[in-house]
């Protein structure tokens, strides 16, 4: 703790007493207290905030925070097989470089003149994502996938005028929870079942629950459990023949390899950009995208900002600005579509850098690498006694469910044993449903070496006996 009585803080230049005094004189008051005249005595906080006194030097602050962080165990020093909405992918050095640029880090709401670079880099993000998703419109990022999916549901409601949505029960549980809250009280949320063998959508259940009251159907592909849904077009056809919208969520890292949702009838695509050059940050670095065709009836329903490219007074110069600004709450408050504000812009810029570096070949090769690596892991794990992997008989991308229920050990016991060997085992799915009791969600990316996977298998083999 800094015991110096009156010190000028480096972050507060005008805390220098002489400067303060001079400024007060120029204002014409005796003390700063006079400037607070409008706050009545009765509202003044008279106590002391129980917050530590200033740590003082930057060195002290650094040591203090680093000591706390040292209580964590990171995925750099342990082998992690965790996924489920946050994934460990390689972050190119240039992504960090641009992400840390002061100009981008500390800019905010300037005009498309002095902040032209912000507009262009976000326009490029929108454009690069559009190629990946094979669409013509992508928004300036919203908070995360939960928000993107929730807004997509409300967009479907506004476009169709209907009051029910169908959501497959294999979407990420966070998503379902967020959608339920976001749609109350305007939309009813009904869940759709999955096929118990394949983990894909139960088409009969979809047909049974579809009606003229349904605004949209939402599913994720790959699903929360890593399963590749191959019936996408059939689903979209059923949805469209009932006048509803097909809404699909996707983790874009797979799209160098897999057909994007627009390729099987999706009207709205949503997802998260976390895989595209963002570190995991304890699940704290997320950005949601919403993508559609360039049709007025869709564009006008976005709550987000949409940056458009245009001309300037000088031939050949590109300018940027907001498309249909009066669509937003910035333009017309509660008459706008939902609401908009600070969200995830810097992550969007970073994802744009990632896609620019990776290019088409990089994304395709990465997709294939992840596919092969996860298949290798599944093949090796399936040799273990009592282990059923993958739990569902389908194609998978990156993630898969491992069923330990025939091993005589719980996922909790297994993960404890793995932890002792510096391995973070797959997430325990037990809380979700009876079907997934003693199952774990494993994630394998390009950051796992063969040796990492072999070590997992060795340790599990020892643990399972």
């Amino acid at each position, binding site marked *: 703790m800094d015991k110096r009585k009156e010190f000028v803080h480096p*972050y507060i230049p005008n805390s220098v007493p002489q400067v303060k005094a*001079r*400024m007060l004189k120029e204002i014409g008051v005796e003390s700063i207290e006079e400037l607070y005249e409008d706050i009545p005595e009765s509202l003044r906080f008279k106590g002391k905030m129980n917050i530590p006194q200033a740590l003082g030097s930057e060195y002290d*602050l650094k040591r203090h925070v680093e000591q706390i962080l040292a209580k964590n165990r990171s995925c750099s020093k*342990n082998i992690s097989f965790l996924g489920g909405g946050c994934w460990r992918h390689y972050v190119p050095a240039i992504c960090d470089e641009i992400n840390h640029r002061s100009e981008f880090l500390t800019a905010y709401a300037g005009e498309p003149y002095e*902040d032209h670079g912000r507009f262009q*880099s976000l326009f490029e993000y929108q454009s690069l994502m559009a190629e990946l998703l094979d669409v013509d419109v992508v928004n300036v990022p919203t908070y995360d996938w939960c928000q993107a999916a929730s807004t997509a549901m409300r967009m479907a409601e506004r476009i169709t005028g209907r009051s029910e949505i169908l959501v497959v029960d294999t979407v990420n549980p966070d998503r379902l929870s967020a959608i339920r809250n976001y749609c109350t009280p305007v939309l009813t949320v009904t869940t759709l079942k999955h096929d118990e063998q394949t983990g894909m959508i139960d088409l009969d259940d979809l047909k049974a629950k579809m009606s003229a009251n349904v605004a949209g159907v939402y599913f994720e592909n790959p699903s929360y459990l890593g399963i590749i849904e191959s019936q996408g077009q059939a689903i979209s056809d059923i949805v469209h023949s009932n006048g509803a919208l097909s809404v699909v969520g996707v983790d874009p890292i797979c799209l160098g390899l897999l057909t994007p949702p627009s390729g099987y009838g999706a009207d709205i695509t949503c997802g998260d950009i976390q895989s595209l050059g963002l570190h995991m940050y304890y699940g704290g670095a997320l950005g949601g995208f919403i993508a559609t065709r360039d049709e007025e009836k869709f564009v006008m329903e976005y709550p987000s900002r949409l940056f458009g*490219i245009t001309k*300037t007074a000088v031939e050949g110069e590109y300018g940027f600005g907001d498309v249909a600004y009066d669509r937003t709450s910035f333009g017309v408050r509660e008459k706008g579509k939902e609401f908009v504000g*600070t969200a995830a812009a810097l992550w969007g810029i970073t994802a744009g850098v990632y896609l620019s570096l990776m290019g088409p070949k990089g994304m395709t090769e990465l997709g294939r690498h992840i596919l092969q690596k996860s298949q290798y892991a599944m093949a090796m794990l399936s040799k273990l006694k009592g282990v059923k992997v993958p739990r569902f008989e389908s194609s998978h991308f990156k993630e898969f469910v491992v069923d330990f229920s025939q091993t005589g050990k719980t996922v909790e016991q297994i993960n404890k044993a793995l932890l002792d060997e510096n391995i973070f085992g797959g997430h325990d799915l037990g809380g979700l449903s009876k079907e997934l009791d003693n199952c774990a969600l494993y994630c394998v990316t390009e950051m796992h070496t063969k040796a990492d996977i072999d070590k997992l298998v060795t340790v599990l083999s020892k643990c399972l006996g």
Partner: protein
Amino acid sequence: MKNNKAKVRNFHQAKWDEEIIFELDTPGECGMLTPQIEPEIEQLVGDGISTLPQNMKRVRPPELPEVSQMRVLKHFLRLSQQCLGADFNIDIGQGTCTVKYNPKINEVLAGNENASQIHPLQDQSTVQGALEIMYKLESFLKEISGMDRFSLQPSSGSAAIFTMASIIQAYHKSRGQAEQRDEIITTIFSHPSDAAAAAVKGYKVITLYQNEDGLPDAEALKKVVSNRTAGLLITNPEDTGIFNPRIVEFTRIVHQAGGLCGYDQANANGILGITRAKEADFDLCFFNLHKTFGAPHGCGGPGSGSLGVNKKLMEFLPVPVVGFDSEKYFLDYNLPNTIGKTRSFYGAFPVILKAYAWIMSLGADGLTEAANVAVLNNNYLLEKIKKIKGAAAPYAKGRHRIEQVRYSWEPLFADTGITTEEVTFRLADFGFHLWSSHHPFVVPQPFTIEPTESYSKDELDEYLAGLEHVVREAYEDPEKLKGAPYNSVVHKIDHSTLDDPKKWAITWRSYLKKHKCTD
């Protein structure tokens, strides 16, 4: 009293005339090589692709540009130079945004691998450091606000407002009154999201306009509360920088009608340690960590909106919150009537970490000092700007403000025909931002300045000198302003295409389809 150090800079922004990334495409170039799959793996599983359902194999690779690594770097570095961050300019012209110094040490701390390389689903014993930081930040915010429990989950201020509206609705639902109470009251000088987020929850929004003091009127409030009132969402001080001294009457009126009171504390920077949500009798409040608490704005995120509630609303908070059982920290999902999730996982952790470090650096007295100096800086500017011919500070005549002021160029406009927008564009020629106001423009020709505590008196004087210079130009040579900016990144932008569905181009591919001939 002229400050000779306050020069009007002969500024020119970096201008690269840089292409759109797609224009840099050179087939065959590549920016990154991906790791090669181990040969033993390929031998065992083959190419992997043959196991994919045929219709899920992407037919055409994505048409991303192919660009070598150094050129990608150069491209984005050039774009960054064409962006005016607070680290570069005297960023006091973004009123309501609280653009203060974002300490670089906090960036270093967030880059620590024990912050950036941890996964949210790790065993909680392996993330005690992360949970400790979240728990302690919550404890600081409880002290600052007087609220009983915080969720750090909402992603931003607007997200926190939406969460407040959700909790208010859940509360009334638990008492069987959700259908009856379908109205939310807010004010025109509170953030647009206070109105818009409530509307998402199906609320009818009633907006109070200002009286001649620039404040919402308690009498007007009494006329609109009823047994249909679910709650009040309000900022104080509002975007005018004027503190409503009758705020306790407001919360009492709403409580008497059976509603809840939510405090939008986006404008907290001038009142830290001075007045609290609790004593004003609010049930909910939130703070913007990326404004008041020194985390960077990042061009518009990531941010974080920390939401506090009193005891009776704790059970509705989004899950999980962070608990401490006297030995270890844990993620607590045990809130019986939680509204569920508003975001995946627990919150914008790097933003939370930076806010924690900012508070620890300043300490309790430092927070109040920051507030005091922000208010000092603001009133210093008010005193000087009032004296600029062409400028006005409407409402609260002769009174001070808290941390920002909503000004008006109305006299300038009447004298010269120059608009607030034209002043803003010309200020860009001197390396300055100036923001007008949220819509609608209740104050005509508005501009809003919030200096925060981060800039020195010399810097404030420099900004003033810039304002005075541009205003003088407006009187002497208004045509000069009409063609501005001249020293910025681009020239006058043609916005006409952006509202026309046939012409707008939100992506490069759309631009090519609509505006360029393709071979």
